């Protein structure tokens, strides 16, 4: 003797879905995005990167890992990446967000930096901000050095294993 299987959905739900499907109206689900959103997303990304480096810095400190030279180097890398993120945040803010500074290469040898307020300080500040590799390359170096030292620390333990 067979039993009839109980309906999975109630009849009312079927009616609601049918009405929604048969009687559509304007949803405004897809909005237009301005090109300025790109730089904001990029800046948020930098902030996120900065925050993650802060987290890494304090986590290494909180777990007292800095006593080991490798982790100390990684901590330095995180610190330098924090500075680098601040540097890039500032640079992008000036030239890409509020557009008060502009840099135009004239030739291989010369560049023109122009600020709306003609502030020499702002110009030189922006010039220095453009040298951001002076922060991120050492940061990357410390990361490399930290991992290398961890490998060196790990190696004798591995060699001792039978």
């Amino acid at each position, binding site marked *: 003797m067979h039993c009839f299987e109980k309906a999975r959905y109630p009849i009312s739900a079927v009616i609601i879905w049918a009405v929604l499907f048969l009687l559509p109206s304007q949803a405004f689900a897809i909005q237009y995005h301005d090109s300025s959103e790109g730089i904001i997303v990029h800046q948020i990304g930098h902030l996120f990167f900065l925050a*993650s480096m802060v987290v890494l810095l304090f986590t290494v400190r909180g777990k007292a890992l800095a006593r080991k030279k490798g982790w100390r180097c990684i901590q330095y890398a995180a610190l330098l990446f924090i500075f680098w993120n601040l540097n890039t945040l500032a640079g992008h803010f000036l030239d890409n967000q509020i557009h008060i500074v502009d840099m135009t*290469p*004239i030739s291989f040898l010369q560049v023109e*930096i122009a600020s709306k307020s003609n502030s020499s300080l702002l110009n030189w500040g922006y010039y220095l901000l453009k040298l951001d590799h002076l922060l991120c390359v050492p940061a990357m170096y410390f*990361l490399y050095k930290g991992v290398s030292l961890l490998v060196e620390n790990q190696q004798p333990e591995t060699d001792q294993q039978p």
Partner: protein
Amino acid sequence: MITSFLPILGVDIAGSVAMIVLALLTLYKARILRATDPDNAVFLYLLWISTGFTVFAVSRSFGHILKQFLVLTHNADAWQSISAYSGSVNTVSFMLVSLITVFFNQSWRINEKILSGRKELEDAHQQLINLNQTLENKVIQRTERLTSSEHKCRRIFEQSLDTILLTDNDFKILETNPAGIELTGYAKDEMLMNSMTVGDFFADPSDWDKVRKKIRSEEYVLNEEVAFLKPDNAYVTVMITAGIDYGAFGCAKSHHFIIKNINEKKHMERQIAQADKMAALGELSAGVAHEINNPLGIILGYTQLLLKQDPDHAEDLKIIEKHVKSCKTVVSDLLAFSRKGTSRIALVDINGMVKGVAKFLSNHSDFRNIDICLELYQNGQLDVTGSEQELTQVMINLMINACHACEKTGTICILTEKPDEKTVLVTVQDNGTGIEKKDIQRIFDPFFTTKPVGQGTGLGLSVGYGIIKRHHGDIRVKSTPGSGSAFTIHLPAASPDHSAQTEDHP
């Protein structure tokens, strides 16, 4: 403001290249680090973060180099069209790095848990190793103790002079020690292959029935004396103690027997009893003979006197004379048995004496159908110190007994041997009727005879026994009913430097 572009350009391009190189080196090192301990979650995290940084460094550096190249080559428009893509990839790459970094704490916790779990596992493993080692040590100790105990038990079993037999519930032999092999005369393989039981050793099956029933009912027997029959038909008197082992560790029920050979002991006891009996009988016989001898002498004297004086009653008187002489012979034998006679002690050549007896008896009518064979010792002189007359008498008695046992038809062998420098053996062996087991204990008793009335006095063997004992020897008998008997006289051999001497022996 117009200023030098070279520092910015140089740092940007050199920095971009350096970023790529350092990021790749970091990734390489992170892979090595991970390889050292693949289960380490922190190392895995560092590999991920290095990968993220490599993606970030490569995408960003290529973007920077490309931008500088396009701008300086007056293709700024081209850069404008691709900068959005480069920037987006760049954004995604460092957000990826950020995401991975944020999970450092979680990675660390996971790693700690893994390490903690591994530590617990290692501790448990170490404990297991220790337990295993302890167990192994205990097993070794117990095995050593067991081996030592087994060795002791095995030595007791193997070295025991008493027979130890182990049988199954049906008394089938499972194990025996060397003493058991020697006592029973059967090889161990023979016992096992032929499924022999303890009952097969018993000379009398009724004895075995009795012992078996007692074991079944009382579960033990203690010091039961029975006779075993060996494969060479020799009897051995043994004392049996047996019990039941209900088995341990799943072993089947079994019986164990401890069997002591008391043959020698019984033989000695019999000899002592015989000697005591003979001594008592000798004293009695001597007393009786002495008291009878004188009246017999008087009766014989007067009878012979009357024969001369009164020929009318000669026939009656001769009958009296004959029977008195018979009585005197008996008395003389009794005196000989009780050592009351006199004899001449000298060096006796046993082979010569045996030959003389054989020659003398071969002419006797009773020995007409008897085949007398001599197997004499040939490796030198066979001398004993004693009375030749008495020893001859003993030999004649044994030969006459053998002749009667053969019912005057058969073979009698006389063997002389010298098993060692101190002993001389003389064996009289016949193939006659043999001696019944019940009679064998009494054959040396005075007046014991199995012959019909009037044919024997029952003094022959007892007189012989007395003579041999007086010569510091022994006389032993082996007999199988229906097959014959063998009497062996053991005499001490005369020493080589013994000079012929004579003396009167009381």
